[in-house]
């Protein structure tokens, strides 16, 4: 009984710490606006990006050459996105307030992916410019 209680408390604490950690990683990018070039490439017009766009934005980011600087951050946010999706599926039916919160969080993840895509586009343009100049 005590062990089961320890397990439940540990999992609750683990989720809380992990969610806060991922939010601290995302927080740095949320203040940055999505550039016009990303909006042009993706066709996204709304100021707030729909959470469902996350996978497509990451796929586009994968097409660009990577500098290796954002790999760990993307992996952490992807794990967070999956966790949120599962959380929404499981608890959304029973707790309506959770749905709007998860939608907001998924949108933040998509925003993060858009910024990551923007960085990679800039990186690949920089590479191309270097090759052309040499």
């Amino acid at each position, binding site marked *: 009984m005590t*062990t*089961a209680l*320890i*397990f439940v*408390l*540990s*999992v609750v*604490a*683990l*989720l*809380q*710490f*992990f*969610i*806060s*950690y991922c*939010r*601290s*990683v995302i*927080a*740095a990018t*949320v203040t940055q606006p999505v550039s016009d070039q990303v909006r042009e490439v993706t066709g996204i017009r709304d100021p707030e990006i729909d959470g469902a766009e996350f996978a497509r934005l990451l796929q586009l980011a994968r097409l660009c050459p990577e500098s290796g*600087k954002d790999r*760990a*951050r993307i992996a952490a946010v992807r794990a967070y996105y999956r966790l949120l999706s599962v959380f929404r599926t499981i608890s959304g039916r029973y707790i309506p*307030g*959770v749905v709007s*919160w998860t939608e907001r969080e998924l949108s933040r993840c998509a925003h993060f992916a858009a910024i990551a895509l923007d960085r990679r586009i800039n990186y690949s343009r920089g590479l191309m410019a270097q090759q052309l100049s040499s």
Partner: protein
Amino acid sequence: MSRTLEFAVWFLTALLQIGVVVCAIRAKSFLQFFPLNFYMLVASLFTIVRFMVLVKFGLASSQYFYFYYYSDALLTICLFFALMALFAHVFHEMGAETYIRIGAILVLGLISAVSYFVVRQAQDQMLTHFVAKLSQNLYFIGAVITYVLWAAVRKMHETRTQLIQLVLSLGVYFSAYAASWALAVIYPESSMWKFGPYIMSLWLPLAWGYTFLKIPEGARLATARVTAAAR
């Protein structure tokens, strides 16, 4: 988990632990977070020596058994002091470092005493039982103290991003360890829980390395933006 994968994780852990120290030196944060870096240095050293002991004497040998438990206890004590150093950082402006140091020693003494009273009935290998129990208790207290520290960070509106991320990653580490321990007790025949410590041994150096490498010392973040409560 296959033996090859186990060894690969082992080496990767040691490399990442050394990587944390390198990142901290590069970011000029080595001395600022010395107890954390000292823990990573000792952890990498023990990871390498553990592997050497394993290769020389084998997994079932008493040499490996003793080295594993004694080194784990020392590492847990180092991690406990690293956690206390984070406390000192958070309460730095209040000038409470001395009280935190005294408090840390008192808590460690109390946990040691409790661990001794729990294992004093053991007839043989009393010291080994003691170090194993001490290590286990420190993990649980570590989890509780990290939770208290996170509450203090939120209450005091701490904004240093480096500090926030170091505390949060330590919270993930301790709570995952506590969860995997509880699973091991509930389902002793299952091997699922054994993955927990492997993943966590990679998590902490990865998260700390990322913080030192990517987060500038002056970066600020409002804690209200990272708390997990649904609004």
